[in-house]
């Protein structure tokens, strides 16, 4: 197939990982379809255990702007941060093709910063979701926003994705370290940057789906 063994195996791993995430998202869809939907105007929406919540009513908080209702603004920011870190990653791969060590270092560092920023945002969002706005918040066994299953899926899906982001940051750091210490120059090629780049783009790709099916729909 005209690709190296390592790249091919990374692709096959990503296929299997895509199935895992599909399993989570599809079961979310199934459980959601088995709950009654909220009927009525969006502006009259109140949290209730009786029906599935409208996500934009749940995720409308923004750090440092307590009490304001900015639906999905924070998730939108997180989406943009992840897209940006995907771009810096692809620029690192491009620099690797040119064997430009300084540029690889620069773009890998930006990618790591983007990943850490995303994780920080997610930590804030989890905290806000768990603590709540005076309504008791949510845990695996209680949920102020709607059916308990909604909170369970929130923790599992965004948590599983966050774990991927975390391991991606760790991998990116290893690549950065090995670039700085000159391993890839000695090896003569920067293919590892490309392989880990595939994984990092996949993490971004999964977020695109989580964003649509968990936050927008």
């Amino acid at each position, binding site marked *: *197939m*005209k*690709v190296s063994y390592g790249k*091919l195996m990374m*692709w096959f791993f*990503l*296929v299997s990982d*895509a*199935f895992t995430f*599909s*399993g989570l998202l*599809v*079961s979310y*869809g*199934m*459980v*959601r*379809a*088995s*709950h*009654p939907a909220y009927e009525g105007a*969006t502006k009259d929406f109140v949290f209730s255990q009786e029906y599935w919540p*409208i996500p*934009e009513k749940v995720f409308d908080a923004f750090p440092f702007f307590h009490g304001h209702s900015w*639906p*999905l603004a924070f998730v*939108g920011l997180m*989406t*943009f941060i992840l*897209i*940006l870190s*995907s*771009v810096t*990653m*692809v*620029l690192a791969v*491009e620099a690797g*093709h*040119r*064997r*430009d*060590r300084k*540029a690889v270092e620069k773009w890998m560092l930006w990618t790591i910063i983007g990943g850490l920023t995303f994780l920080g945002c997610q930590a804030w969002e989890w905290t806000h979701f768990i603590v709540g706005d005076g309504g008791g918040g949510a845990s695996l066994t209680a949920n102020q926003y709607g059916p308990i299953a909604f909170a369970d899926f929130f923790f599992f899906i965004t948590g599983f994705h966050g774990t991927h982001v975390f391991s991606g940051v760790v991998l990116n750091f290893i690549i950065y370290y090995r670039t700085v210490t000159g391993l890839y*120059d*000695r090896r*003569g090629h920067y293919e590892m940057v490309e392989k880990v*780049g*595939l994984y990092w*783009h*996949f993490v*971004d*790709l999964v977020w*695109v*789906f989580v*964003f*649509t*099916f968990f936050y*927008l*729909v």
Partner: protein
Amino acid sequence: MSSEENTNAIEVQPVDKAKVRHLLKVMWILAGVTVIEFIFAFTMDRSFVLVSIFVLLTIVKAFYIVSEFMHLGHEVKSLMYSIVLPMLFVVWLIIALIYEGSMLHTY
């Protein structure tokens, strides 16, 4: 060639400006589609049409990430199909389980 010669032979090539421009274009497409999704989310009532629009725009974004960032669109066709075709199983899974789920709600 010994590994030492290899080290010395490394030459840094100049930035391929056209390639970088192309990547930035993809970034703006992804950001733009996300903005469009937001506009739809706040101007349209929840309906089957809206969900279809979201799914369509998500597939557009996924296409650009996989094809350009992950470079799959420029790989050999056999590699491309061995990655993309297995995803058809997921399409089946979605249809089957959403249908089953709505039945659970009815009965």
